[in-house]
């Protein structure tokens, strides 16, 4: 049984990775910080392998598109089951060059979730063993969860969604 203290975890990470731990916030009690794509794997490996933390469970990987900043983000939710401590990591990537290393080697559960993120946002996970579309058809060209992709066929003239506030 291990106990994770929020503050000591943060100090430890900041000491070890310095400026790669940015924007620490805690919305609704879930410790969140932003990191860089270069430091992502070292941080995850450290959190996974360090016996004081043992973040062995990757709850969730998902993407977010911020068109105003021309940025894409990958969000990781980690869970240390032994101490029941959750952690959220964010990595922001420029729209023009959305490359990020894969975490498949650490967590097998990332495999399909990264494929899903690639499928919907076009984020390329370098080193992924099988990076291809998963839910959409293979010959699709767009990345449909990006904000510029319309919900419905824009050529339709029989519907006017503005009446419904969308």
């Amino acid at each position: 049984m291990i106990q994770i203290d929020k503050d000591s975890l943060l100090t430890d990470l900041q000491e070890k990775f310095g400026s790669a731990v940015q924007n620490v916030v805690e919305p609704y009690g879930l410790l969140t910080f932003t990191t860089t794509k270069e430091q992502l794997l070292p941080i995850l490996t450290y959190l996974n392998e360090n016996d004081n933390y043992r973040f062995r469970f990757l709850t969730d990987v998902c993407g977010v598109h911020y068109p105003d900043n021309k940025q894409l983000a990958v969000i990781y939710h980690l869970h240390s089951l032994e101490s029941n401590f959750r952690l959220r990591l964010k990595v922001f990537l420029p729209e023009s060059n959305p490359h990020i290393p894969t975490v498949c080697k650490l967590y097998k559960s990332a495999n399909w979730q990264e494929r899903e993120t690639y499928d919907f946002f076009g984020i390329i996970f370098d080193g992924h063993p099988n990076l291809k579309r998963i839910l959409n058809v293979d010959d699709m060209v767009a990345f449909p969860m990006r904000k510029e992709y319309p919900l419905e066929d824009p050529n339709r003239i029989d519907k006017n969604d503005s009446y419904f506030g969308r």
Partner: protein
Amino acid sequence: MAHIQLGDDSLEKETTTLNLGPTHPATHGVFQNVLEMDGEKILSAESTIGYIHRAFEKIAEHRPYYQITPLTDRMNYCSSPINNFGWHLTVEKLLNIETPKRVDYMRIIIMELARISDHLICNGILGVDTGAFTGFLYLMQEREKIYEIYEEICGARLTTNFGRVGGFERDFNDKSIAKLKKFLNEFPAIMKSFESLFDRNRIFIDRTRDVGPISAEDALNYGFTGPCLRAAGVDYDVRAMNPYSSYQEFEFEVPVGTQGDTYDRYLVRNAEIWQSVRLIEQALAKFEKEPKGIYHADVPEFYLPPKENVYNNMEALIYHFKIVMGEVDIPKAEVYHSVEGGNGELGFYLISEGGRSPFRLHFRRPCFIIYQAFSEMVKGQLLSDAIVTMSSLNVIAGELDA
């Protein structure tokens, strides 16, 4: 039994590619697996998914919060009330709404009924896949009774669209309580007879023991949650670890298995059904002690008012208009909330930028994450074992593809 060994130059040493699915009577849903077979033995498997992808995450970005509930119905349609309440609890967490205790107990009753119906389907069909139809018929009758209780409370059976942000749209009526009590009286006997048909059945054990096993380490690494993880021996249950909806007040056990194989998953699900019955009994007792008539939180700016008030009452009309047109203030924040669904941790990651719709909503769907281990679990097994393994993972196509 030893597999026949053939020399490298033997003409018989050829493998067969077999398309299992997308529509195959033995896979309950639209799943395709391309299997590379050596005789009846599976050498490798590749799953293709996405056949019923409906872009819920994209649609959710264009819908007001209360219209997202019916989308969640259609994910795990064997236990849709859990999805509904999971979504409502997420929005309530975002808005800092505290629900009355009575609402929490009502939710627990419905969620545990949903869990029972989910597990009944899974274990009943596992019986069918191993050649025993009787148990399935017993359980389907009981599921029908659960659906009748839903119907009495919300009017729907399968895709329930249960409740609203803040509570329920109406109170439990006397008929629903009577049906619930009747179910609690009659169900244990049926469940016992189902268990006595299967638990120590030689044929069933031979078909399920050591079939599709997964170790605890692998299960964790693959992101397993729910009965499949607990069957491997890890006692992770969201209800116990991160209690929501007043689960912390209840007494229940988290059953675990040891082998992580199909038989253990079957046993864990049965044990969970008994725990759910226990939870419903406790919740019903607590529910009846609470003052009558409270079935939603007092949050007029988020809870849709009853229709008759909208027509006759100025304030209700204003709130109705504001909610429907998205003029209520939603905080700019991000929130992750998870509930214990039928198959494991069902998570909702919601980013709100204000406004009537979420900026981003991501569903953590347990089936999607569990199913990626399937191809490794069936490697080296027989084709008939692959069917049983898939059945015991309880992969629901709607949740897999979202």
